[in-house]
């Protein structure tokens, strides 16, 4: 039957939208700017166009992520913790621990039959988040996407002592000037961030299988560094950026199903999709 669910995940750096019914129909990923609301609408429209649907075809919209409150047309806000859990549980049922490395935070989530049972989160300090790599990549004059590949050619990993992202940046630039090979430095950065993440997520008593999601999962160097810490290989979903949005859509589906079963009408947001910006 034509029940369409939408999940909108506004992260600190990337915004993702998926539209699903039985399977995923459309997904859009775009950078998050200062104007969340405007962006949410734009990205949603794009996704709808891709799926040849209009907003009225959508049964339920769940917003998640750091900007979730800025999605006027969402029917419900749910934290990224629950959404990632639901999304990964759906994509990779065997997973017990999720490590999500976002642009400005890092989460560890413990799963038990597709639901979050415990979690840890870092967003106090940029060390251990994607920003750490972004900033240092800038300092090195390297494209973020090349970091992973480059680090794999490291001969001997350079030690990065500073955990403060800003100081790490100056530290790596100094190392570069001292003639330390680029790959060694980048490998050192991955080592440093993997260490921070491992220390934090370790609080959950990590159990296999482990899935890696978020932008960090696209960085092969970081994946390898984490696998080295864990001592075994991790699973990475086909599109690691989308697990939150997929989970959001699925939770929307659960809510719709629940309502139908209890024969109560589905509570929906008054606001429909329209060009809203933070100025208005």
């Amino acid at each position, binding site marked *: 039957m034509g029940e369409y669910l939408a999940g909108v995940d506004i992260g600190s750096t990337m915004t993702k939208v998926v539209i699903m019914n039985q399977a995923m129909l459309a997904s859009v990923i775009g950078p998050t700017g200062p104007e969340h609301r405007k962006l949410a609408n734009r990205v949603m429209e794009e996704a709808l166009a891709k799926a040849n649907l209009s907003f009225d075809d959508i049964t339920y919209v769940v917003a998640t992520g750091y900007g979730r409150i800025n999605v006027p047309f969402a029917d419900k806000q749910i934290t*990224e913790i*629950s959404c990632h859990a639901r999304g990964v549980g759906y994509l990779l049922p065997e997973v017990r621990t999720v490590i999500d490395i976002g642009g400005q935070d890092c989460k560890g989530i413990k799963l038990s039959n597709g639901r979050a049972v415990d979690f840890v989160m870092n967003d106090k300090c940029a060390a251990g988040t994607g920003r750490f790599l972004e900033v240092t990549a800038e300092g090195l004059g390297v494209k973020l996407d090349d970091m992973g590949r480059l680090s794999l050619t490291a001969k001997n990993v350079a030690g990065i002592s500073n955990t403060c992202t800003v100081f790490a940046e100056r530290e790596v630039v100094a190392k570069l000037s001292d003639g330390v090979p680029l790959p060694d430095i980048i490998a050192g950065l991955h080592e440093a961030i993997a260490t921070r993440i491992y220390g934090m997520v370790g609080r959950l008593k990590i159990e296999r299988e482990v899935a890696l999601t978020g932008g960090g999962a696209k960085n092969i160097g970081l994946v390898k560094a984490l696998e080295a810490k864990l001592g075994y290989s991790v699973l990475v979903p086909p599109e690691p950026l989308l697990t939150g949005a997929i989970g959001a859509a699925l939770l929307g589906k659960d809510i719709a199903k629940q309502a139908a079963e209890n024969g109560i009408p589905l509570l929906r947001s008054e606001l429909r999709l329209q060009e809203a910006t933070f100025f208005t």
Partner: protein
Amino acid sequence: MPGEGAGRGLAAADKYYQDYGCRARELKGQGKRIMGYLCALAPLEMLTAAGFMPFRIKGDVNEPITKADVEMETIVCPFVRSCFDMSLKGKYEFLDGIVIPHACDSICRTYDVWKYTLNLPYFHLINMPHASDDPSLNFYKALLNTFRTSLSKFAGKEISDQSLTQAIQLYNQNRAKVRELYELRKASPPLISGAEVTKLLVAAMGIPVEEASELIGSVIEEVKQRGSVLAQKSARIMVVGAQIDNVAFIDLIEDSGAWMVADDLCPGARELFPYVDATDDPIDGIAERYLRKVYCGRTCRERKGSYQEYTEERFGHIGRSIREFSVDGVVLYIYKYCDPFGFDVPATKSYIESMGTPVLYLEDEYSMSTIGRLRTRIQAFLELIGSK
């Protein structure tokens, strides 16, 4: 006469909370002497018996710490730094002195910084032991008598056993009121919100004990009269931690769809539930209470028997509250740089979880700037409890 100047009910509590120190300032104007103190372990009965109005120094999460950093390292507990910052900024200009119990390193090790930076006529460190065996208790009694002598010298009046006994009664009545207040939280939904309780208890730290008891009493009446007006929410939360003297964090919990119905905090149950027993020498009862009845991480309880019994001895009161207040989840809220509570986290967490109660451990910095960041954690924790 008691209660003079003190308004009534939640409105008065809110006024004293918002304008913390206004009553002390007023009384100072009327010639009352005000003695500041840091931390729940200052023996208030002694201050009151000496004719002072005890005034609890608090910080301010909304005020960035600036002046304090000129004299004090930033590796000190942020709550203590904020208290010091407020004092330096003249927020408590009405104080005649400050009494500081040897609570933790952050307080004890900065004693000289406080003493030599704030020009106040009186300072005294009560060098409370960390051990709690009998020799420690006797030592503590000796300390209290040294303090008694020193304080009466400054007060210019002898602190008689009789005045101590009266003070003890006043504070025990106050503690009874607080217990009565907490009864209102047992209903579901609670009759009074966590934010309302915290505001009231903070307000009470800044006014004379008789007025505090009356204020709490008037709030109890008001709340009973208004009946069950609070909405039903998804979870009943207990907060365990060192000191919370503002509602920002509690609002965060209660705005996220839960009620805070119990605590092991200062100000809160940990500090305000224990009574002082009537003893021939009032010092005995006071010493026993502050060293052995206030379950603060800074006091090392003697281990008798197995480690499990020891854990029960240390955290049993938390377990009892979880049952009595039918708590669904506990937020373990610890400040950075807090040695007494920081080292307890693994044991506290596993004790509470062993009761089947989920725990959210948060390390925070005593600043509004972090509140936003905690929101997602709180909401996720509540979703997690809800899906159980």
